[in-house]
């Protein structure tokens, strides 16, 4: 047991060391590194979406708008105010805090409005924000924000990813996590056993928005620019696809969904337009055979998987002994 408690922090430290080496010494092809960073950033985003859409069970389309808040706030800060690269984590943190506030705002309609009606309110939030950004000249208007310092590297993506995964795990296993899932299963029943519905919704929306804001900030500092169109229909659709591909209400599913979709899009790149056709067909097939995503509601647990296999073997052996003994 002691070894196990020790193993996770050790792995994290080793991971940080490896990613530090990767980002400062150029050991790996930059293209692969770029894809790895995309996977990490999208995993953080999908974790955030999963908190609301998966664990809380509310169909929200607000993630593109929230991501825009994170990307623009942190981008503006690191371009004009906190220009020192050492202050990069602070920029991301402040961008995510701005996103957190927008998450609080989105959570207010969810007290009263339900289902598809709430989905369209969150969609409205995204589209209003996109329109505002297109019309505000000081953030670059429709041309977008250019020359953001490209501070994102694989080490920072890794660190934020570890923080995000740890935070979501802690949250899900806490009192709030249990309240969240109780609301998903049955809101009225949850209220009857004195779950504070409003407070829980505010906290979950805020936390989700914070993570999505972090991913937005990292993305804008990876690409060195950001524009309103990045956070439009395509981002809404891709975010949903990654969540439901990997599996609802699952941390490992979030990673799997982000990694599979990003890799799929990259591997199929030589096919040109056909990659979207192949990707869409694959998605339809996966949805037909696994309607709640690849890891819906479960976690990928190698230890438990091995135990299950050995148990099956021992059960089989016991059965053979019993048959042989007859």
């Amino acid at each position, binding site marked *: 047991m002691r070894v196990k408690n020790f193993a996770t922090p050790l792995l994290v430290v080793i991971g940080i060391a490896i990613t530090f080496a990767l980002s400062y010494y150029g050991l790996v092809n930059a293209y692969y590194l770029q894809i790895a960073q995309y996977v990490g950033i999208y995993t953080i985003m999908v974790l955030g979406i999963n908190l609301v*859409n998966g664990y809380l069970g509310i*169909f929200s389309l607000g993630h593109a708008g929230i991501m825009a808040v994170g990307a623009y706030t942190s981008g503006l800060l690191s371009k004009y105010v906190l220009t020192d690269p050492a202050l990069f984590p602070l920029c991301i943190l402040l961008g995510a805090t701005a996103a957190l506030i927008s998450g609080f705002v989105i959570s207010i*309609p969810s007290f*009263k*409005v*339900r289902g*598809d*009606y709430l*989905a*369209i*309110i969150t*969609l*409205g*939030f995204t*589209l*209003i924000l996109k*329109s*505002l950004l*297109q*019309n505000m000249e000081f953030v670059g208007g429709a041309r977008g924000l250019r020359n953001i310092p490209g501070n994102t590297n694989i080490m920072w993506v890794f660190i934020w990813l570890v923080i995000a995964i740890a935070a979501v795990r802690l949250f899900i296993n806490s009192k709030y996590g249990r309240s969240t899932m109780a609301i998903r299963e*049955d*809101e*009225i*029943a949850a209220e*009857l056993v004195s779950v504070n519905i409003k407070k829980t919704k505010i906290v979950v929306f805020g936390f989700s928005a914070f993570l999505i804001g972090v991913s937005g900030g990292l993305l804008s500092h990876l690409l060195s620019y950001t524009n309103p169109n990045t956070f439009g*229909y395509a981002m809404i*659709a891709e975010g*949903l*696809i990654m969540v*439901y*591909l990997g599996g*609802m209400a699952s941390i490992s599913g979030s990673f799997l969904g982000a990694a599979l979709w990003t890799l799929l899009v990259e591997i199929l790149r030589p096919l*040109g*337009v*056909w990659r*979207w*056709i192949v*990707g*869409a*067909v694959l*998605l*339809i097939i996966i*949805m*037909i055979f696994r*309607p*709640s*995503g690849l890891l819906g509601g479960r976690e990928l647990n190698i230890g438990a998987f091995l135990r299950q296999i050995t148990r099956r073997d021992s059960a089989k052996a016991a059965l053979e002994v019993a048959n042989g003994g007859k």
Partner: protein
Amino acid sequence: MGVLLQQAVNLLQLGSIYALLAIGFSMVYGIVGLVNFAHGDIFMVATYLLFFLATWLFSMTSSSFAVLLASTALAAAAIGLLAMIIERVAYKPLRGAPKVSLVVTSLAVGLLLQHLVLEFLGPNSQRVPRMVPDIKFTVGTVNFEFYQILIILFALFIMLLLNQFIRRTRTGVAMRAVSQDATAASLMGISKDFIISVAFVIGAAIATVGASLYGMAYPIFDPYIGQMINWWSFTAAVLGGIGNIRGAVLGGFLLAAVMVISPMVLPVSSYRDIVAFSVLILVLLVKPSGLLGKRSIQKV
């Protein structure tokens, strides 16, 4: 005064088109409970089909009115069939699955249609051939065109036809029964699969008519046209109360009113989308199930 009347005609024209598109959204939702995000892309495919049919028919006859009617009818039949095939292949295996997986599947179907068109027909904008004689009317100070009248009347005709179909025919009664209570309806001997297919076919056919009318007013189109149409018709359907066909019509006209009036009042026309969605959010905050939607009772 003249300006107001002029804008009223514009409002009716735009509202008719939005209403036709929102009907398809609402009808499928009422029967299956699916938010069909492929609806806009079906509209886009219909526009392309209409374009090719009209071009082909013009090579045989010069009567533009015959071309309009024939191409719309042929395209509506073909797109109805396409919608039925999509339903059978992609949505039917998901009966009983969580609703969100249906939504994701419909997103994927939309993506698929859009990129198939992109691959085979290219990303360039096209122009629908003119099928309506170019006649302008002037009443007092108001100028309006023949196609505007045609759009409004044609849409009205389709809506009345649909209303009669749903109220009077056996299939229409069966559709209402399924949307009220699918289990009870199937116990009364109604084939749920058949009714779902009918809803998809009618929704797609009406979207095709909408595409035909849209092409008269806004002849330029490209493979990305579906996305915008998708969100606007979804908005109209939700505004009126999704699942309710009359609500969809009301939502369509209301959305058109916001789109037409806000540039008149506001200094910058690019704030139109912001106003449209703000109105939508306000309406939903006051009436959480849309204007004509039934308030659902939550049972434990």
